[in-house]
């Protein structure tokens, strides 16, 4: 039996502490504010439903949000479409970053976002994306190199 969480209050605490960062991370990964909104809400709703079943709720809900976002994107058959750019306020550097992230592969994007937006160390990123630390390092290096090249060209 794992640690789990025993109350909606605990889930709300996790949401209050990490929900905003999670929404921004999923937004950066998916490039779609509506997908980010739906996947974060659904991930926390599933965490509430599963109760004590989930042994590590914080890690679980991050993974769930990205998995749900991937499913939503697959269903909509679009990645990083940035269709509702005007629906939320965002500074220009962040908007440029989101456009640049669209050019990365899904796995590179996930590694870069989890490491740089969510602040996870490489080992945690590897667990979340289902990969190895060595592979994550390679994805990070390639992703960062691509981002630098794109953002320099835009300048």
């Amino acid at each position, binding site marked *: *039996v794992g640690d789990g969480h025993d109350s909606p209050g605990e889930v709300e605490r996790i949401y209050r502490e990490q929900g905003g960062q999670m929404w*921004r991370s999923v937004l*950066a990964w998916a490039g779609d504010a509506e997908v980010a909104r739906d996947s974060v809400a659904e991930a926390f709703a599933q965490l509430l439903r599963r109760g004590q079943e989930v042994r590590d709720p914080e890690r679980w809900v991050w993974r769930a949000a990205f998995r749900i976002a*991937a*499913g939503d994107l697959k269903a909509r058959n679009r990645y990083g479409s940035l269709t509702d750019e005007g629906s*939320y306020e965002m500074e220009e550097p962040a908007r440029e970053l989101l456009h640049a992230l669209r050019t990365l592969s899904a796995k590179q994007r996930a590694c870069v976002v989890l490491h740089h937006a969510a602040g996870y160390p490489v080992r945690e990123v590897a667990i979340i994306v289902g990969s190895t630390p060595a592979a994550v390092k390679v994805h990070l290096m390639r992703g960062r190199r691509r981002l630098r090249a794109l953002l320099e060209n835009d300048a």
Partner: protein
Amino acid sequence: MPDFRDGFESLGRTKAPDLWGDIAARSPREERPSALRRVGVVALAVAIAAAGIGLAIRSFGRVDRPASDFRSLRIAAVAKIDGQIDVVALSLDDSELLRLTHSAEWEAEPAWSPDGRKVAFGAGALSSDEPDTRIVAVSIADGESELLVPPRSYENNDPDNPVGQPAWSPDGTALAFTVFGGGGGIYLRSGAGEIQRLTQAGPPTGRIDSSPQWDPDDDRILFVRDDLVQGRTLLMAVDPGMGKAEPVIVLSNDADVQDASDLAMSPDGWRVAFVSRGLYVLDTINLHLDRLTTCDPVECGGDHSPAWMPDAGKIIFLRGDAPYSIRTDGTGLARLFPTDLTLWGVDWRPSPVVATPQPPPDCGVAELTSREYDVTLSRTQGSPGTLVTVSGPTLRGEDGRWAPMDGLEVWWNDPQLAGPEVEQDATHLKVATQDPGDVCRFEVAFDVPDVPPGSYPVVVRFYNDEGYGWSREHNFSVISP
């Protein structure tokens, strides 16, 4: 100069919506529609192939090939050897085989323990009037066997309805298993050896429960329920502590799925593979179902016995009696290795190999298909040297299992290359093989003026999407531009 970090800092200042009201308002356990990908229909039940009917029985005169190092044994299988059905552990290229049982009985459904040290399986006499079926575990290192579920320790006393399908808990202490027939259902063996019935199935109930698999993320066991009364096949989940079973999805709602068997939970806990009219993968969060293979049991032997590789990127399975692998997106279908063994069931060793990289059997096994690659120098914090990453090399082994490689890491142990003069992402160099067929000999040509020519000891580690690889120390020749 703009940097992507400025973008992330800016993103961190973006105001996120408050979703708590939305979260709280979402109805409990609503059934999400299944986005099923229909690929076609195969008319015959794959269960026929899974049961081994129609598989050729051949005599090989095979002798045991003792494994020099049991860590190289990655696959557990039930195989026919010298007329006997036994449990074996195999290396990836079939060059090593460790025979775990030598018995005239039958064995079935091997399952590695999470630490990779033991294999559990069902066993019983080929012909017996007594209910003697049981579940046994054998140690890979010393061959010691342990009786986990003794005969008659469960409620079923019907000799024709055996016990089997062992599934280890994520921590390796408990074991879920299936009892078929009267008194049937999903059972649990605790770490203390106590046996408990979790679900009620069997003839009086009108349903069959089978194929338990532990969800590594959650404290629940997934299994297949055939509801014979309503003619449905469901994926169910049961809490081993509470014993309460709930449906996850009605698999047979999809016209493409008739029955389901051979559940295999991915190591990351997000997907479950199963067999129906081919090999399928269900995302347990989104409940998206993908069909990976179409294989007529008559024409190609049928696909069965799926098992996940540790990074969840590939699934191995049996097509007829031969081992195959396929990526989880349905691409890359390939024969895993040639073998003269007749195999009935396979499982992949769960321990990640990255922590203990294995040397290749022969340096000539892998082959670089291109002689030059652009690489980037960088320094990795905490590493023994400087990490050199090669962009997208393709290594091709004799059986194709090394191709395509996702990357190549070169750890420079020489202090001249790990010094402060080498900056992260500073420059490029080229790696070339002297002989495309020999990965043991490389030349590294630097474009960096401050790296002097010479011979440098390095450790090279090859890996691919599965994270498998091997490491070996080389002397690299550095040639000035």
